[in-house]
């Protein structure tokens, strides 16, 4: 696979093959969302400015456009490069308000204190919620999470790191709001996993 060099300007580093790349990235994400806990390879198709990672940028370039406000965490807004790259390559408006975001990209999950500031949707339109993309260093070497729910045969295991503070408790609250709630997309190195709101976290010893 040809390695795309890091972009020197925000105008570079987008999809070379937008149709093929976005389809490949979407199918990986769809499979990840349909089978929580499974890890799916992502092609190296984007070269965004740091600290946005190749995985997270491929996902946002696949999903976002002018109809979907994007929220960025403070780690991604230290300079304007990431914001400008996303705006140029997707046309998505950047929002300062979590509750208005269709997508959120989080480069420092460990500093994200609350999940309930994002849009959870309404009881009648639970789909009007934020999909939160967490950039993680690993999906296999963190503290193990045990998952149950739709898409999972029995139980599944995932060990992403870093995660938001008090993640297990926060996820429990998110699950209790069902059908409202956020969906989490875990963007690891060249791979993706997902925890839709339907997923339950259970204590490993249970």
């Amino acid at each position: 696979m040809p390695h795309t060099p890091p972009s020197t300007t925000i105008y570079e580093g987008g999809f070379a093959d937008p149709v093929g790349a976005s389809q490949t990235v979407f199918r990986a994400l769809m499979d990840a969302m349909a089978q929580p806990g499974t890890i799916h390879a992502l092609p190296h198709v984007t070269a965004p400015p740091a600290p946005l990672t190749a995985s997270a940028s491929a996902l946002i370039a696949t999903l976002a456009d002018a109809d979907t406000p994007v929220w960025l965490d403070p780690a991604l807004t230290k300079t304007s490069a990431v914001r400008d790259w996303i705006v140029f390559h997707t046309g998505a408006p950047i929002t300062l308000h979590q509750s208005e975001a269709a997508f959120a990209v989080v480069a420092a999950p460990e500093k994200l204190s609350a999940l309930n500031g994002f849009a959870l949707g309404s009881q009648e339109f639970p789909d009007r919620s934020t999909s939160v993309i967490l950039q993680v260093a690993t999906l296999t070497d963190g503290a193990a999470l045990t998952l149950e729910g739709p898409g999972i045969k029995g139980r599944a295991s995932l060990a992403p790191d870093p995660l938001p503070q008090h993640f297990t408790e926060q996820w429990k609250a998110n699950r209790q709001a069902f059908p409202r709630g956020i969906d989490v997309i875990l963007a690891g190195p060249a791979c993706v996993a997902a925890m839709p709101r339907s997923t339950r976290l259970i204590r490993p010893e249970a």
Partner: protein
Amino acid sequence: MIAHAADAPAQNLASYNFAYLDEQTKRMIRRAILKGIAIPGYQVPFASREMPMPYGWGTGGVQVTAAIIGRDDVLKVIDQGADDTTNAVSIRAFFAKTAGVATTTTTPDATIIQTRHRIPETPLHAGQVLVYQVPIPEPLRFLEPRETETRKMHALEEYGLMHVKLYEDIARNGRIATTYAYPVKVEGRYVMDPSPTPKFDNPKMHMSEALQLFGAGREKRIYAIPPHTEVVSLDFEDHPFEIQHFDEPCALCGAEQVYLDEVVLDDKGGRMFVCSDTHHCESRRAEGHRGALLGDEPAFGDQPLTDKEPAL
């Protein structure tokens, strides 16, 4: 059994995108699919586009397939259980042309199966996606014509009226008379319409290995059932859900416990029952299974089913 498309798409016709839909429409549909998967059984509104085929030809399913399909996919399309009806042939040709994908009639070889009525008899495997063409996605519509009201009923899990309707069936007929579009409850939360599939197929939706996606073009709804998800047909303790039973096996392949279509043989009332799933029937005959109509003679080629009519 896999047919490869003769030409790569858009080489001589650059006027449409891969799989016909523009990228912005695909993104919008893809986002709806992800929400549908995250909230199993919930109907996600989407901005359905005009397709170069009339509503009723599965424009919702076609849009879902167009949004997910890639160059390496192998597509199977069935109408009733058959791969060879006009509707199925047209949709297969549409994607062979616009996406250059390989097509197949063999269930296990397909990565995406688009269907109008049936779930294949061959159990689906992990990684496969079953895309349903849905005419009426709202299971509560016949009870309540107003969308704002049905949405409220889903929001509040107010499904009492649906149970009352089913129970009226029992009072009138001694059993639940609904045989198609028999409502299910997904993961204990949303009541969902499996759409025009016969209730015979409802149990196949439960804990399927495959991802199931539903697209309603005219009604602008997408919904989903992830693999390994609980799908329960609504019923009552004293009147449990039952699938249709057929008195005789398939006349061609002898299969039992499959869904059969009635085929009229002549104008004197002669008829036979054969597998609705043509691939299943053909593979059984290829394995040497023989139904009553074929007798014990050695088979010289397959019996053509040109006069096959749906038993609707």
